[in-house]
């Protein structure tokens, strides 16, 4: 269809068009007017679902705050390790601009694509190819980049929830992308196969993903 006939249709129905646009805008303004909500939130009845959302988030929070996650979502400028989430003893490591560390001590200079058999050896995770398959010849191990540090360490549930749903702080992730990250990212999956001597989070991975889904499906509301 050529452009001109389409423009004639728009012109004929322009007032209806404008009315619809205004209505949609009004609804969006109403919905987005709440400072806590974000793009990820679908307009639903907030009350009963809000409770479910917060319950689900609270479950997920116990995983987010576990050392397996916190250690790569630190508050400071260096990666953490161990059950007590301390800096790598004896090493002065830095996040670096892209989160991959600073030469000559970038993350993958020690961390490989798989765990090594001993809890004093660095754990590892593979790179993901464009087609989604895992590349075990190349490691991927890093912190969030410096301008979106995605800090979990020290966050209250309210703070973490707001941060995860704020596109300015969550790296522009949509709900689907967030769910994808927690369900398939090798670095997240690693939390449940962390190698000898490292504890796993308090929920199973399935339970964790389900709770994240539940939270977002019910509006992604945040506790106060």
């Amino acid at each position, binding site marked *: 269809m050529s452009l001109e006939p389409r423009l004639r249709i728009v012109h004929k129905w322009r007032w209806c068009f404008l009315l619809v646009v205004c209505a949609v805008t009004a609804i969006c303004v109403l919905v987005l007017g709440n400072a806590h909500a974000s793009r990820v939130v679908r307009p639903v009845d907030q009350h009963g679902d809000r409770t479910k959302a917060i319950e689900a988030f609270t479950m997920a929070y116990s995983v987010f705050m576990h050392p397996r996650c916190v250690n790569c979502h630190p508050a400071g400028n260096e990666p953490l390790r161990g059950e007590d989430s301390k800096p790598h*003893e*004896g090493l*002065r490591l830095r996040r670096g601009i892209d989160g991959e560390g600073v030469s000559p001590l970038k993350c993958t200079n020690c961390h490989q694509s798989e765990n090594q058999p001993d809890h*004093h050896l660095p754990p590892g995770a593979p790179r993901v190819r464009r087609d989604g398959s895992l590349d075990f010849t190349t490691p991927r191990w890093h912190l969030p980049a410096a301008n979106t540090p995605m800090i979990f360490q020290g966050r209250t549930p309210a703070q973490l929830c707001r941060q995860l749903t704020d596109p300015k702080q969550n790296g522009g992730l949509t709900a689907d992308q967030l769910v994808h990250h927690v369900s398939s990212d090798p670095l997240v999956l690693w939390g449940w196969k962390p190698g000898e001597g490292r504890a796993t989070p308090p929920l199973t991975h399935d339970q964790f993903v389900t709770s994240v889904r539940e939270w977002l499906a019910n509006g992604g509301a945040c506790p106060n």
Partner: protein
Amino acid sequence: MSGEVSRRFFLTASLAAGGGFLIGYSLSPVSNLAPNSESPLPLDDFPLNAWVRISSRDEVTLISSQSEMGQGVMTTLPAILAEELCADWNRVKIEISTVAPAYRNPRINWQFTGNSESTTGFFELLRTMGASAREMLIQAAANRWNVPNEECYAENGRIVHRQTQRTLKFGDIAEAAAKLTPSQSPKLKPERDWKLLGKPLRRVELSSKLNGSADFGIDFTLPGMLYAAVMQSPVHGGMVSSFNKESVMNLPGVIDVVPIPNGIAVVAKQYWYAHQALKALKVEFDGKANSATSTAILDQQYRTALNGDKWKAVKTEGDAVRSNSMTGKFPQVFTQEYESQFLAHATMEPMNCTASVTDESCTVWGPLQGPELAKLTLSGMLKLPLEKVYINRTLLGGGFGRRLLVDFVVQAAIISKAVGKPVKVIWSREEDIQHDVYRPATLNQISAGLNESGRPAAIAHKVVSPSILQFVYAPAVTEDNDPSCLEGLMESHYEIASQRVDFKLLKIGVPTSVLRTTGYGPNIFAVESFIDELAFKAGKDPYEFRRGLLKNERSLEVLETVVSQSDWRKKAARGVARGLAYTEAFRTHIAHVVELSIKDNLVTIHRITCAVDCGFPLDPEIIRNSIEGGTVWGLGVAFKSNITFQDGRTVESNFHNYQIAQMQDTPPIDVHIVNGSTKTLGGTGEVGPVTVVPAITNAIFAATGKRYRSLPLSKHGLKLASAA
């Protein structure tokens, strides 16, 4: 170490006295160390004595008897020869000697590298040997020219006839010179004419250490060589009770499984395969004997010893200390206790050795400090005559005393004999730390009888320690005495009229031996902390108090130097405090000033100043390097390094839990060399850590009023803050 070597300890040696063929391997300043097997010298290479060899192609080879482990002996000692010889230093080759009586340290007639006495032990001998060779060359040239000796002199690798300016290269007359009888008392070159000694020389092996070509023991290879990984009884003193060879024989690269005295070895075509297989090997150990030993139990043992009687009085000088107690003899008696910890050597290159054993001979290549002990031990163990045991030394990736022992050498020989091939044994880092032979912990009690002004008029030491020398120099150790445990206490420059030392030699369930600083380390930590405490009690500045106790000019000069080169006399900024310590150890006078701040148990060291008098500084740059490095070692001893035991085993296993000083721990360190005489040479390799440790604890006291008397400081929750 003191005392004559006991002849009964040695098998009779039938080695030729000095002047025999020299076997070793060559090194030129920019080339590799390439170990040779024993073979006769080329026919045109002429030894003038055990230390100098010159070929007709004018190649001058100087022999280094001492093992090179970073202390620079392979440069400085041959430089002594080259200086007297008047050789062209830029063209000499350096060769590491074999084991022969000519290469024994003259003081105790035993061939070893350690105790910071390479330079002091060999200085006179090497001057004499170099001078003697020079005179032989001059004589040979004078004969050739038919002129008097007095008209000839040596310079830069040539003999010159003064009147006619005719020259002959050393190589032109080497053969003739080698036939002459050397003078027994050659004329030494005056120090004012020295061209090499006293100047910083480039280390002869420096280039090879910068491009990966330097061969350490762990790098040595032979065609057909196999590799072995070892697992020793986790409980000290335990043995293998059973093992299942078949559990690994099918694994990649595995050749054999061989028992060793305290454990088991897997032999494979490469180390990694041996190491992997060892993890899979089914083996059981019987460790009943010492399985109860732990740090807690050892602490009890030391404490019981200190509180008990049956002391050996090793020194009693002055009436005030004739009896066991000073009570009632002085206005005040002050007593304190100090504790130093068990330490591991943790050389960067783990223990390793290569051996090739046949029915007729045994040849060894490795990073050894004690080649004569190795030779004697292997000869006895393999029932081979001494002349069929050949010891070749590579470079050492650190020694610190650990490689004076021969356990790893014996393992290599046993395994090689078992498989009938050359074998290189490599210890994993875990084996290296868990089967170190540790610096023993020491418990010191010091009592001083003080006069009215707080000055000590009598001092009595009680020392509880296991043996230091037992495995490396048994002749010096008796049932109840080990002189190394008393270093720093038997002689002191502090003018204290009455001095007493009582010693208790402890027998414990973990192995102990020499480690950098030997007895000086713990004893001077105790003494310099104690003197500092006395200074405080007397209300005196720690420097002034020490000055008041010293008369020796060298002591006073070193102390004055460190004080004036540091900021000791300047008013400290708020929160900044300084600590001082001085001693003479290994014949070297040394003092440290440490300047630090401390907040919330985090110690920031701002600066460390050191003054050192080791006599005439033969190579100031090597000395400076050595003292800096020793100071850094001391930071680790003071703050971090600690070996503990549980259930008869060592707890620490690698660098994550046996912690050493790192870049971020290292503050600026200034070393000031106080010039001394060649008559008062001292060692530098292990003196650096001795005074920095008490200087640190003294500074912490000055900063906080808290006195820490046991090490490491991590035990008390103190941590070193990162340097810049």
